[in-house]
């Protein structure tokens, strides 16, 4: 403490001499170090008191006493700071744990970009917190067919991730060569209804692309509509299909629809973390998504997905309020 005392007093004296900014700058750098060294604010006031009483020896004892009063006022501030230092340590621990968990989840989900003839595929899936409750799943069936599923567990983070790991087991147990989208959703709905807590619902969009006839067939369980871009007319269309959220009731029928993809056409399947972007001024008009995708329509599907993410993250000052997932399938 003696060393600090001397340094503090010197800085204060120099500052009092000509009140220049330089010494305040040093003082603040100094205070940063204090905080790192876990020196409490009441200690700073104590250093301050001794320095003042040394510099102005003529000051009455009452002035020293006012500092004691301030020390007393600072004790709880000091406690809050020390609690903060301990929480930060715990937080970094938790953060590391979450990273491991996110890896486990990723390995579990195993979303790899498939290779399907004539189809360019790109996606971005970013978690708002450490773990995502959004889910993206691809399956290729001998380069002839592609299945894509995008799901969102209502709610964020860890419980959602636990649910997703469950659904993954369900998905894996389905033989997709034999199933059409509406059937797949029916089967998954049963699994979810049986094993997931009542308070947890899941929206899912399920699509299949057939290389032979270039048809994209889709069904939706209460999920955001996908966007379909028609290169010929340069216009967007929403691909929606009727169906209840997964897990609400045991037996549900899902509507199944189809669209034909021509060269330059693309389908973008998204979660509400993309379509319901919140900025400081409220929700964004969803037309902005069409506009952004249109701007980069000639780039690769991955570049398009990356661009959409970057622009929308920018608009939210880089603070995601919800998990963000977009999958783009573009006909070459």
């Amino acid at each position, binding site marked *: 403490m003696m060393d600090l005392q001397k340094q503090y007093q010197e800085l204060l004296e120099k500052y009092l001499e000509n009140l220049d900014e330089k010494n305040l700058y040093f003082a603040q750098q100094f205070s940063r170090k204090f905080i790192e060294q876990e020196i409490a604010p009441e200690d700073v006031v*104590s250093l301050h008191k001794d320095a003042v009483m040394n510099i102005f020896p003529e000051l009455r004892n009452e002035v020293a006493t006012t500092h004691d009063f301030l*020390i007393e006022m600072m*004790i*709880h501030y000091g*406690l*809050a*700071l020390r*609690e903060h230092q301990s929480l930060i340590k715990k937080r970094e621990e938790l953060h590391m744990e979450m990273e491991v968990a996110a890896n486990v989840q990723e390995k579990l989900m195993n979303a790899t970009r498939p290779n399907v003839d004539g189809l360019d595929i790109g996606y971005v899936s970013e978690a708002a917190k450490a773990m995502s409750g959004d889910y993206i799943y691809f399956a290729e069936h001998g380069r002839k067919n592609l299945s894509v599923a995008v799901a969102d567990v209502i709610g964020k983070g860890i419980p959602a991730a636990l649910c997703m790991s469950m659904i993954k087991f369900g998905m894996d147990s389905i033989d997709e060569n034999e199933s059409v989208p509406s059937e797949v959703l029916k089967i998954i709905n049963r699994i979810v209804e049986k094993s997931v807590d009542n308070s947890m619902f899941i929206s899912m969009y399920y699509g299949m692309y057939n290389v032979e006839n270039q048809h994209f067939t889709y069904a939706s369980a209460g999920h955001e509509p996908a966007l379909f871009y028609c290169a010929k007319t340069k216009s967007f269309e929403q691909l929606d299909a009727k169906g209840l959220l997964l897990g609400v009731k045991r037996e549900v029928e899902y509507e199944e629809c189809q669209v034909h993809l021509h060269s330059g056409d693309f389908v973008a399947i998204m979660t509400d973390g993309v379509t319901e972007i919140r900025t400081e001024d409220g929700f964004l008009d969803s037309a902005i998504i069409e506009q952004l995708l249109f701007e980069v329509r000639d780039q690769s599907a991955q570049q398009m997905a990356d661009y959409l993410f970057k622009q929308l993250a920018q608009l939210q000052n880089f603070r995601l309020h919800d998990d963000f997932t977009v999958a783009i399938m573009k006909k070459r």
Partner: protein
Amino acid sequence: MNERSSVEIYTEWDVVAARQLGRDEAKSIGFGTVDQARITTAISELARNIYLYAGTGKIEIRRLHDGVKKGMMIISSDNGPGIPDVRKVMEDGFTTSGGLGAGMPGVQRLVDEFKIETEVGVGTTITAIKWLR
């Protein structure tokens, strides 16, 4: 030499009396101004907890001499309801533990050693030690 002294806690004024006792003892043991304030704050929190949650109890102060080390022991005891979930009360940053540095984790931070013994329906005894450096 008065090695042990105590204050019974019945009213909020007794919290002030316990603080006063603690500060006087701390001063005469030789603790500096900041440590006096910290010890007093710890006592204050313990005594206030008795007053708020147990109704009545006692704050006892003992002087310690451990070889060349000198220190002060604070014992807070009550026959109140006890603490059903000590783990929660000792956790940082939760409203249950006082929040923003206060409560039991705060007391623990203000001293060098800290022990809590509690039984539901029987009462709580908290022992805190601060050594003079």
